[in-house]
């Protein structure tokens, strides 16, 4: 039978473990935004070598499952003599993987802007950094918000994969909890509730931002 007290007791350790989920997805998207923006800039640059590099970057990272990327990265580092904690390896892998998707989100938004937007700025003599900073990017960011929030929600869920490298985030914590209490049903439903709560908050944040930046 489903036991309400066991279900409620499962929350405390899982909420504690949610810090890692939030840390990994939060830092992951931040890193992904930085690298993704650079990759997008490379993709749109006039230099063929940069464009080629960015294209390979994106297709490689989109073509290999995150779980496999995590394992490859985690087990490669010691081999090449780099000793970092599992959490760092996890954040970097998640960030790099997200960068591929984020660069495509930017590229799509920028491509969707009518050419006339930049032309109008160029016609009055605006310099490229102003055209990008004042005309193209503000609109691209607004247009990308739904896709970026979507990406963040995917990352929160994908962060469960880092349990394979031993980080005690929600999923790993619930496995441990289920093993010691022999009550997997209550524990996993509690874990599901926490993921759902986090992502509902993110959706609400997304709606709020979209509303605020609506053109």
């Amino acid at each position, binding site marked *: 039978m489903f036991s309400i007290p066991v279900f409620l007791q499962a929350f405390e350790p899982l909420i504690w473990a949610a810090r890692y989920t939030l840390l990994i997805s939060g830092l992951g998207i931040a890193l992904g935004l930085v690298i993704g923006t650079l990759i997008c800039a490379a993709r749109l640059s006039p230099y063929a070598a940069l464009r080629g590099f960015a294209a390979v970057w994106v297709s490689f990272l989109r073509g290999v499952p995150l779980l496999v990327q995590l394992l490859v990265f985690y087990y490669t580092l010691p081999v090449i003599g780099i000793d970092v904690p599992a959490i760092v390896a996890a954040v970097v892998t998640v960030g790099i993987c997200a960068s591929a998707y984020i660069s495509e989100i930017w590229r799509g938004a920028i491509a969707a802007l*009518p050419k*006339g*937007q930049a*032309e*109008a*700025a*160029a*016609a*009055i*003599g*605006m*310099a*490229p950094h*102003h055209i990008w900073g*004042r*005309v193209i990017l*503000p*609109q691209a960011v*607004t247009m990308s918000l739904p896709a970026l929030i979507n990406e963040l929600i995917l990352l929160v869920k994908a962060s469960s994969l880092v349990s394979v490298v031993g980080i005690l985030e929600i999923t790993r914590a619930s496995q441990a909890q289920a093993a010691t209490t022999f009550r997997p049903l209550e524990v996993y439903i509690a874990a599901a509730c926490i993921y759902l709560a986090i992502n509902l908050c993110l959706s609400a944040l997304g709606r709020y931002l979209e509303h605020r930046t609506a*053109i």
Partner: protein
Amino acid sequence: MQASQVEIRKVNKFYGPFQALKNVDLTIPPGKVTCLIGPSGSGKSTLLRCINFLEEYDAGEVRIDGQLIGYDAPGRKMSGRKLREMRRSIGMVFQQFNLWPHMTALENVAEGLIRVRGLSKRDAQARAEDALRKVGLGDKMANHPSRLSGGQQQRVAIARAIAMEPRLMLFDEPTSALDPELVGEVLTVMKTLAAEGMTMVVVTHEMGFAAHVADQVAFMDAGELIAAGDPASILHQPQDARIQSFLRTYHERNSF
């Protein structure tokens, strides 16, 4: 107001194997209104966009007050900085307005004054307000473009251009995207500018505007400049068969 003169000499433009402009020669006199007319696809917008080098011509020369635009010498492109310097005194108005949707009318007009002319935010706003009042939009300054009619948007676009105090204004089919009842308000603003002695080049399908406001009308067809002259000679006594046929079609479409 200083007004620029434009000399277009033997200008050619290719898109791959397609030749969009064929040895076009045209002088645009200072302080006058020149209308470019012709069937769609005849190259008139392409020619207009060569004047501020939004379209890069492949051969020939476009000189503004004697200065070659786009190239330092034949075949050697001018630096971005130099090109921007020249574009400062050339205003352009587009068929689709191209206002920036994330800025208010006032911000649209002030942006160039701040970023390009280096004015303080306060001075830029004061000047943007003057420009918007001039086009009759003193009460719409805080509106975003999505809250303006097409005619109002195009007038904001004209304000954005004239606030920069250009010596030359280019209009690329400024009324073609407008509902018929909104065309008049835009043409009225353009007539005011013309009366002030601004050099204007206007690509248009408004034959009435060409007939009544233009000092010079140039007719293009298939990338060639067929004829240029005063409106009466081009629109009322056209010699060339292509102009006659173009005007016949125009009259048939506009009579009921």
